[in-house]
Structures are given as structure tokens and as C-alpha cells.
């Protein structure tokens, strides 16, 4: 499903070049949930940025079903990501002036897919927010916001769901509830998921854990 081959990423500083990822290679099979853990600054988020195609590697490849996303033209890569890869952030990043249902509808509207409202309502129902459809993000709790973000991530029926510290802004109890829902939905829709987390308990619930240390994976 996802194949990472010899992935390097370095940043230029004033004095020298700082290598964050030092030739990573790993595979994630369809339906697998992988956790990427590591200390701060180990390169976890950089890796997730590369997996989403939003960042470019210094060298190496990321293949989705044998297709290298970095070899695609920008526009094609953008459409590919929108259709196949969804992202969930620690800070949810919902559009503040759209209601819960409008936030979930938005990816479908952008991709000009039909039945946007029906699909959005269905997914919000699945995440247990059918009573909060017309509420704005400012009127929802952190856990509810993250559930809207999960529904938004699922609505386009992507191949892969990437999550960056999804429980980072939530208390442990809410975080546990949200992630339990997350696992349930990912399994139900047979999705592949990569979760970047500090949370060892969360990582333990995943199918596989990749430990990132000084830019190298220790599985």
C-alpha cells in the first residue's frame, strides 16, 4: 500500500545542513495501522509531511500502490492527495465560520462529488455528532472538534488516514474515547493509517510501531 524507499530530508541552516531523516525505508500494508513514535525533534512530523506529499524529500520515494507521489505534477498530486490521503491534526483545524456538517461537506464539494450533505450527515452520525450538525467549531468541545475532523477525514473515502498527534490537545479520557472511535472507523472502512504520537499507550494499540530516533527507524 505505502512504500517508503530510502527517504532523506535535510534542512539548510545558516552554518550547515541539518539532516532530519537519514534514509528511511519501510512498508505499510493495506488495512494496517502504524504508529510512529519518537522524541521531540526526531523527525516524526517531518515524515508525516512527506507521507502526505505536502513536503518534498531531499531524496527518496514514497509510493502509494506503486505510484511515486513526488513524480506527479503538482496539480495531479493535489488531486491524488485529496482523493486518497486524509489528514487529522492535533489542533483539528476546522474552518471556524462553517458548521460541523459544512466542514465535513467541504472536501466533497471541492472534489465536486455528489450527495455531499447526505454523506456528511451520515459520517457525523457515525462519530456520534448527529445532534451537533449545525454547531460552529467554537461551540464544540475539543473532543467533538476532533470527531468532526475524523468525519471530515473519512468523508472522501480515502485510502490512507494520516494523523498527527490526534490526542495532543485532549485530556486522556477524551483522547481515549476519540481514538477508540478512530480505530473502530478505520477498521470498519478498511483504511490504512499512520499515526504520529508521543502516547505509548496509543502506539501499543496500533498494529505496528516504528520508533524514530535521530532520523533512523528502529522497529
Amino acid at each position, binding site marked *: 500500500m505505502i512504500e517508503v524507499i530510502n527517504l532523506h530530508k535535510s534542512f539548510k541552516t545558516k552554518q550547515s545542513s541539518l539532516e532530519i531523516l537519514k534514509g528511511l525505508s519501510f512498508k505499510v500494508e493495506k488495512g494496517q495501522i502504524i504508529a510512529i513514535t519518537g522524541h521531540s525533534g526526531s523527525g516524526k*512530523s517531518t515524515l*508525516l*509531511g512527506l507521507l*502526505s506529499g*505536502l*513536503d518534498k524529500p531531499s531524496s527518496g520515494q514514497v509510493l502509494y500502490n506503486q505510484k511515486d507521489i513526488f513524480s506527479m505534477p503538482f*496539480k495531479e498530486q*493535489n*488531486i491524488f*492527495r*485529496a*482523493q486518497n490521503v486524509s*489528514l487529522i*491534526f*492535533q*489542533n483539528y*483545524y476546522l*474552518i*471556524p*465560520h*462553517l458548521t460541523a456538517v*459544512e466542514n465535513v461537506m*467541504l*472536501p466533497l*464539494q*471541492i*472534489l465536486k462529488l455528489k450527495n455531499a450533505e447526505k454523506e456528511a450527515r451520515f459520517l457525523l452520525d457515525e462519530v456520534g455528532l448527529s445532534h451537533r450538525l449545525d454547531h*460552529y467549531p*467554537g461551540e464544540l468541545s475539543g473532543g467533538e472538534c476532533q470527531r468532526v475532523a475524523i468525519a*471530515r477525514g473519512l468523508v*472522501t473515502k480515502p485510502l490512507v488516514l494520516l494523523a*498527527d498527534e490526534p490526542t495532543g490537545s485532549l485530556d486522556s479520557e477524551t483522547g481515549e474515547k476519540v481514538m477508540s472511535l478512530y480505530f473502530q472507523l478505520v477498521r470498519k472502512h478498511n483504511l490504512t493509517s499512520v499515526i504520529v504520537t508521543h502516547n505509548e499507550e496509543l502506539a501499543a494499540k496500533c498494529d505496528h510501531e516504528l520508533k524514530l530516533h535521530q532520523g533512523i527507524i528502529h522497529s
Partner: protein
Amino acid sequence: MKFILSYSLKKFWRKKIQILTTSFFLCLGFWGWLLSESTQTSIKQRLENNARKILSADLTIDVRREFTNEELILFKQEVQDKGVISESYEFFAMMTTSTESRLVQVRVIDDLYPFYGTIKLEQGQSIQQLKGPEIWAYSEFKDLMNLKINEKVKLGSAELNVSDFITEDQTQTFRLASLAPRIFIHIDNLKKTELIQFGSTFSSIQLVKLNPDIDVIQLSDQLKKVLKDPGIDVTTYKSLPDDLSGPTQRLSDFLGLTSLVSLLFCSLSLFYLLQIWSSEQQKEKAALAVFGMPTYHIQLIEFIQSILIAILSTALSTLLVIISTPVVESSIREWFATDFTFVVTFKEVSIILVCQFILLGVLTFPYERSNSPLSRLIKDEMISNQKGIKFFLPLLLLIWPFAIFASRSWKNGSFFFLAILSICSALILIGWLLLKILKAYHWKNWMMSYATKSLSRQTTASWAFIVTVGVCSALLNLMPQIQSSLQSMMSLDQNKSTPSIFMFDIQQEQYENVLSFLKDRKIEPQATSPLIRGRILKINNLPFEREEKTGTFVTREEENEAQIKNRSINLTYRNKFQSGDKIVEGETFSLTYDKSQKYPYISIEKSYAERLELSIDDVLTFDVQGIEVQGQIKNIREVRWSRFEPNFFILFQDGILNEAPQTHLAALPALDSKQKSELMKSISQKFANVSLIDVERLIRDIVQNLNRVSGALKLMTSLSFITGLLALIFLLSSESLRRAQEVHLLKILGSQINQILKTRIAEVFLLSSISLIIGLGASYIISYFIVDQIFKVGYSPVFSTAVQITGIVLFIGLFIVKVMTTSSYKKNSFVFLKKEE
């Protein structure tokens, strides 16, 4: 305290870019203000410093006739123990040489003149040496009339010898357009000239040099009490000479208004800049609070910061003013055709410092009260998430005192404030309606739907945009409208019907002779008018008395009214209205008096009627050479003075003033220069007392001087225009930065750049259009009132500026949105959003 100070200084040093940018905008706004203030102060100071020289005395009294014996006795009783008195006259007359003739300003002086100021002569003589049948002429006459030392000239009936040329005359004040250069003659020669006759236009002047211990203001007040005739002007060196009038005075008012508008624009720019930085600032303050720093310590840090920024920007403003001094000095020298030294006083700099500090406080105050420290750390709030328009209120309220201060007038300042308030109210009201409509309408296209939801649900941000763009476009268009009207007021309708020569002081007994003299030369006067000198005694039987305004805060309107009330007035009668007359109020009437009428009818010029608050059917009682004459106002007419047709403020029906002592005025048609020169010479030889004005030369001089003033208007308008555009750029940039997160989210969700651009362009276009329509519409209404009520000139709107402003605002808006959105889109969205966390 040591920690607070060290923290503040460290912060000040480490936030160099932000501090310098803030200081730059404060500096830019206050530079315009300081420049305007300093220019006005410099002009005032220069005039005050030179007032003694210009007056040639500590105090003068003057009247446009001979003083009566009774008046002279009263005057001398008040003054005799307090100083020395000198006598003088001033009038215009024709001076003729063997080949040329020209209108000259004649100053008749005695042995004591001048008490102050020097008159430098080419041969190095002293003015007190002027004795015998001789004149001293301005050196310009050497070129103008090819005049030479010891040449004989004729002035009225006297033949005088040119004994020296004047190279510098400190007793001559600067004027935008002086009718003619000066000559000096001794008072002993005045009688020989026979120029002062009944009906002649001249000023009698009594000059006083006071003993050092005498209070000149007190004496002036006393003289005003004893000399009842309002036609007698009492002037002291402490009262500003009357030369700051007309275009110069309006330019001064315009300068104040422009600097205020520029300051407002800079404040708006700063307002949006502070918003861009507010998130970081809030978090820092919140962190300090969470770590236990008492609120008053945090406020103290803010206070020290504001003081440091205010000091820095005041220093920069002052430096900028000092650097620009040579340019300003040379421009003002050119505009006013005078020596000018630019002065920046400590008082002005201190006021600017305080104002900057207040402005900074007002701009940052709303954020101080927004959230609790902890919520500031968690939330990343900007204006869009705030409710209400409270963010604009402190700035809006601050405009009021600033406007009063800048315009030095409660009336004008309050008018300006109310105008801004009205524009804001109209913009908020119509903006509110627009947002309601947008909210109710359901778009099928997701991009339009997204754009309208974004506008109608982030109401404060939308209102902020509408108000800022609306106010900016209104003010951007306001200045050109005022400028156009002022320039139009100053432009002259030169055409074939413009007269070439004015003849005045034609005595009644000379009138027929002058006409036949012209007829012999096949010249038909364009117009002739009788001229009767009078003074208003009563309005509706209530006495019309001398009006003196005292105190430092006097509006322009009050000054004008006081001046007009204290002057005698030229009356005329005519049997038909002229082409330049436009009746704007009341009825047209036969200009031939019918004895069955209760009162003779009179027509009043519009601005004169407004200044004296006269209205239709008011009965005026005039003193015409000691006889009371009454007239009832039947209409008010507008006169196009720039046509240079002889016209008068007060026009009587034919048949009332015909027997009154009078002189005549004639306007001669266009003539070629040779014909004109010969005619002027022969008229002054045949009718020595008749004064001639070369209208063409006068128009040329006025146009030249007004063009200089137009340059000043353009420069000031450009300054406010540039600062206005800067405000717009910062508003749009701040708005685009605020929306950057949305751009990245939409990108992650699969939006193409074109789709995002379409939504942003739709938003900016919609808001800008509504703001432009309201703002530009309001600018025409407000400029009409400012031009009509404050500047008191005719309104000449220009519509091309509105089209240009619409184009510029839309172009800038769409350009910034495109550039900033595209730039955001190209960035790494993942890294951006991670940084935001």
C-alpha cells in the same frame, strides 16, 4: 522595577523590526502633521516677528477716507503721552513718464516714517532724507518703465523727480498678488498731486511708536472703544496682519485637514499591523501573567514600550522634518513668494510625542481587555473572532480632539469628526444589510457559497473591511474634490470678453468727458458702474456695530464676519442684471425704482449675505455720505468674480442713489498691447486722477501665484493619497495573513489555487464594491458641505477621481489577494499548520 525596566528595554531591542515598523507608521502620520503644524506656526511666527516692520509701528489706525477732526482729537488724547505719532496715506494712482504709464501703489510718508523696519535704497540714502519734489520707486520700475535716476515723472498733477530706487522694503508685507509696485512720496507733495479728492479710494493711516512700558493691546482696545466707526481699523504688531486671507488661509486650513487625513490613514495601517502581531504579543503577556507577574507590572512594561516607541517615532518624525526642511522652505518660498525660515518648536515636538503615546494606547487598548491570560495562551484569536466593533471605537473617538486640534476650530474639527462618524455609520448599516442578504441567499456553487458564508459569519472582520475601505475611499476622494473646488475658485475665466483695463475714481463731472474721450478712440466700455461709498448702519432697524473677536480660538467664519462688519462698502445701482449674475434666492425685480414701493429693492451677493446672515426681505439702513438710505433685500445672487466683470456686493434699483455723491468705474474691452499702452498713457495724461488697472497683467500675476498654491495643494493631496493607499495595503495584507491558515486547509482538502482565488476575489470584490459605492458617494456629500460651509467657495466636483480610486482600490485589493494567496498556497502547508499549533 529594575527587572521591569530591563525586560522592557530587552524587548524593545529584540523586537527591532516590529518597533521600527510601528515607529515608521507613527512617524509617517505625524511627519505630515508636524510638517503642517510647523508650516503654519512658521508662517505665523514670521508674520508676528515682522509685524512691527510691516506696520512700521507698534500700532496703527487706518480708515478709507480722511480722519475727521473729532476722531483725530480722540486718538491723540489716548496716545499723546504714550508715544510718537506719524501720519501716512496709501492709494493707487497712475505714474507717467515721457514714454510709459503704469499703476503704482503710492505710500505718502512724513519725516518720522518708518518707526520700524528698514527701506534700503540703491544710493545708500536714508528714507528720512526724502524731501522736496521727489519720489523713491521700487527698483522693478527700472525694467517695467525703463525708469532712471533723476527722470521726471508725473503723479496726478505733480511733476516729481526720481531720486533713488528701493532695493528692499521691510514695510511691505508679502502678498499673493499685489496690484502694483510701490513708490514713496513725502506728505508735503501730496496736495500738489491732487490725487486725493472726493470719492477717491485711499487709506489714511496714523502710526504710533509706543513707549516701552505701554500695553499695546490695552491701548488698542481703548481706541476701538473711542473710535466708534467700524470702518476704522486698529492694528497692533501683536495682531496678525490680514494677509493670511483668501487662498493662503484656505491653503492653511487644507493643510491641517490633509495632515489629519494622512494621520488617520497611518493609524489605520498601524491598527492592522498591530493586529498581525497581536497574537504573539498576547501570548507573551499571557505567559508573563501565568508565571505570576502582577497585571500592573505587565501594563507597566506596555507603558514603557509605548513611551519608547513614541520617543523613537517622534525623534524620527522630527528628523524627517529637519531633513525635509530645505525642500519645504524652498517650496513655501516659491508658493508664497517670500523669505521663509522653517521652525520646529519644542512645543510642537512635545505635543506630537504626547499624541503619539495616546494614539498607541488607543490602538492597543482593546486587546488588553480581550481574554483571560490562560485563554490567550490556548486560543489564537484575531479580530474576526471578536464580537462587535469596539476595536474601532477608541480610534474613532480620538479623531474628534485631534480634528479640533489640527483645524484649530471646534466647528471645523467637529464637522470633520461627524463626517467620519456618518460615513462609518452608513457603512456599518449598509454592510449589516448586505451581510444579512448574503446570509439568506443559498448559492449552488460551493466557492460562492463559501465566500458568502465567510463574509456573513465573520461579521466583525467584514465590517472592519467595509469601514476601512469605505473610509479610505471616501477620504481619498475627499481631498481631490476640495482641491478641485479650491482650484476652480482660484481659476480665472479668461476669454475674449475679459476686460483689458479697469478705470476707477472717474469723478462725476469727468464721466461724460471720459466716455467721449473713449468714443473718439473708437473704444466702447464693456461696462460702467457708478460707485457710491456707504456703510451699513442698521439691519431691520437694529444697530450694526463694530465687532471685535478676542481670544485665541476664533473660527475662520468669525474672523471673516468680523472683518466684513468693520468695513465700509461700495454700493452701486443699475437698471439690469449682468450676465455674471445668477439669482439663487428670492425674486428677480425691475431694477428701476417705483415710488409706490415701501422700500427700494436691493440685490445682495450670496457670500456677503451668508457672512452677515442676511435674508430675503431684511431691511438695511446705509450711511451714504451722512444721509441714511434704506433698502429691502429682494434677491440674493451668485457672482462669478473670476470673470473680472465689475460687480458689487450690494446692488440698488436705479433711481435711489443717482443723486448721491459718486465716482464711476469702467471696464474697457480687449486691446492689443500697443493700443493698451498708448491708451493708458493718454488717459493718465488727460485724467490724472483716474486710476487704471492693467487687468491682463493682474490676471497673469494672480494665475502665476495661484499656480504655486495649486502645487502645494497637489503635494498635500498626494501625501494623503499615498498614506491612504498604504492603509489599504496593510488592511488587505493583514486580512490575507489572517486567512493564510484557511488557504492551507483548503489546499490540504484538495482545492486548486484557482478555486481558492475565486473565493477570495469574490469576497474582496463584493466588500470593496459596496465600500466604494458608499465611501465615494459620501465623499461627494461631505466635500460639498466642506467646500460650501467651511471654505465658502463654489463646489466643482470631479468624477474622474472616483473612477480612478475605484480602479486603484480594486486593483490593489485583487493584486494583494492574488499575490498573498498564491504565495501562501505555494508554501509547505504541513509545516505552516505545525507552526500554528
